[in-house]
């Protein structure tokens, strides 16, 4: 297990490093220069040069990348062009807000997705199965802002039962915050339902066709017992992996939902940084999402590993 862990961790670090390269160079290919973007068209060329020097963007690219990377390793993610201060406090606050929204979505979607998938599998090949599968895959491809708009129109504008923005205001109670987060969570739930249901369905179908399920049925156990004790325990393993992977996706998918509902999370932060051409903030935000994703995937692997005794005896290589 130790070797597997080390290998897995090593690969994650390499992937993160490549991600940092992509993020950094995406931020560098912008035409023009940051100081001009900050100071505007009317600023004197000398002022622009001075600010560029102060920001350190007149150095060679490799030097800039190394100093940026060095900063990251020391927990220094850079200095925002817009706010002229370190980006970490902004990232931290936004991440907490996003985590609340993502947590609500997950609490709803995990049981719903698993239930949908298991029901589809138990009705394998029938109309109900097709219906659940197609609804799931269609909902997963509809952009979040589209489903977000539909629920805003229905619940916010027509029925007027829920607020159309997500900003509950400072110091709002738990239930007020919850009420404001219901509508933004719906598009996330819709997108994830398809993925989780599909995995739960595939796992359940595999388990249903297995020898141990047949043995359990033949020795006279009731169908409900076979499903609960023998099938679900095996079929949900791959689903756990998908849920963890989708947690990373969830944080990334927030960019649209948070913009639509004007919610101050990491997605909105990235969006605002992009519109303001605040590249240090943008890079830090995108990289944070990458890190969250890596951690989630790693956690999923470890969880699968500890839940499935068969993996512990070799077989991992």
């Amino acid at each position, binding site marked *: 297990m130790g070797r597997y862990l080390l290998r897995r961790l090593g690969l994650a670090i390499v992937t993160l490093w490549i991600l940092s390269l992509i993020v950094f160079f995406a931020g560098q290919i*912008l035409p023009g220069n940051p100081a001009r973007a900050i100071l505007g068209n009317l600023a004197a060329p000398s002022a622009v040069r001075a600010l560029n020097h102060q920001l350190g963007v007149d150095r060679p690219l490799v030097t800039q990348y190394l100093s940026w990377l060095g900063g990251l390793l020391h927990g220094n993610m850079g200095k925002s062009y817009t706010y002229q201060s370190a980006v970490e406090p902004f990232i931290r606050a936004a991440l907490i807000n996003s985590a609340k929204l993502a947590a609500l979505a997950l609490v709803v979607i995990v049981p719903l997705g698993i239930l949908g998938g298991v029901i589809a599998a138990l009705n394998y090949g029938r109309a109900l199965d097709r219906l659940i599968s197609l609804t799931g895959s269609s909902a997963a*491809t509809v952009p979040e*802002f589209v489903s977000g708009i*539909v629920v805003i129109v229905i619940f916010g504008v027509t029925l007027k039962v829920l607020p159309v923005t997500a900003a509950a205001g400072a110091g709002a109670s738990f239930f007020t915050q919850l009420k404001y987060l219901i509508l933004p969570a719906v598009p996330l739930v819709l997108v994830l339902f398809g993925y989780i249901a599909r995995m739960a369905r595939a796992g359940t179908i595999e388990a249903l066709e297995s020898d141990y399920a047949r043995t359990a049925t033949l020795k006279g156990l009731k169908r409900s017992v076979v499903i609960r004790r023998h099938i679900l325990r095996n079929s949900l393993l791959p689903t756990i992996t998908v849920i963890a992977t989708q947690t990373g996706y969830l944080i990334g998918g927030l960019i649209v939902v948070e913009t639509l509902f004007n919610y101050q999370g990491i997605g909105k932060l990235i969006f605002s940084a*992009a519109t303001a051409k605040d590249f240090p903030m943008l890079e830090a935000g995108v990289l944070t999402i990458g890190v969250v994703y890596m951690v989630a995937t790693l956690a999923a692997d470890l969880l699968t590993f500890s839940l499935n005794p068969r993996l512990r005896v070799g077989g991992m290589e």
Partner: protein
Amino acid sequence: MTDAVATAPAEIVPVLPTRRELPIWRLLLRRPSFVIGAAILLFWIVCAIFGNAIAPHDPLAQDLLRLNKPPSAAHWFGTDPLGRDVLSRVIVGSRTILIVTPLATLLGTVLGTALGLAMGYFGGLLDALVSRLVEAVLALPAVIIIFMFVVALGSSVRTLIIVIGFIFTPLVARTVRSSVQVERQLDYLSSARLLGERPARIMFVEILPNVIPTVVVEFTVRLGYAIFAVATLAFLGFGVQLSTPSWGSDINASYGLLGAGYWWETLFPALAIASLVIAINLVADSTQQVVAG
């Protein structure tokens, strides 16, 4: 006396015509989900080409006396903040997305297939390097990476096609690679190698025709993602700035008015996007099932 019959080698096995022997398009037409998806897709393609002739009003004509009017007999989908007819804009608005997304997906599929063939055939360092790259790209939702590049490069039709195509390349390559690895085990490849065929010929003449079904499925699935990405970028305000209307940009311009109750100018383009992605998804889903047999 029945011995002779019983021990006779069972060499005559009647070959029943299988479903696979029908041409793929006939198998597809038997599936209601494909027919519905293709019909919706065809509808939007017709709108993209002949939109200006179909639209009841000029989609660009402003009527400053009729701003934000709700749906009525004259304007079925109402009017937008500049008094333009929403129905006409929805009809013409399919054009940009139907030009950008197929081209971007095609670019990604062609490059990805070539790369995937090379990865699967040669393996080794190339395979290891690209696999790492795929993981790094997958560590973020594609929309975020595309968004970063479009913010940096500015959004034009060409930039969108190239950025989306390049982001899709490693993803397509990964899928094609695993198909190629299956093919590599088969005898016809050893024969080709023994005949002294060059790697390029083996990859493109021998292997490619056998992985085409995978490529077709990958194309339809990626097309759905491309539409997702382009629509999302337009919604975020990074759409292609053209004189022709586009659904995402129209939503970007009007969703701020949802709170004021002007729902029609945002809802109808949103439903148009939903119908297009669902149509592509139905087509992709049925193609996948037919190809998989």
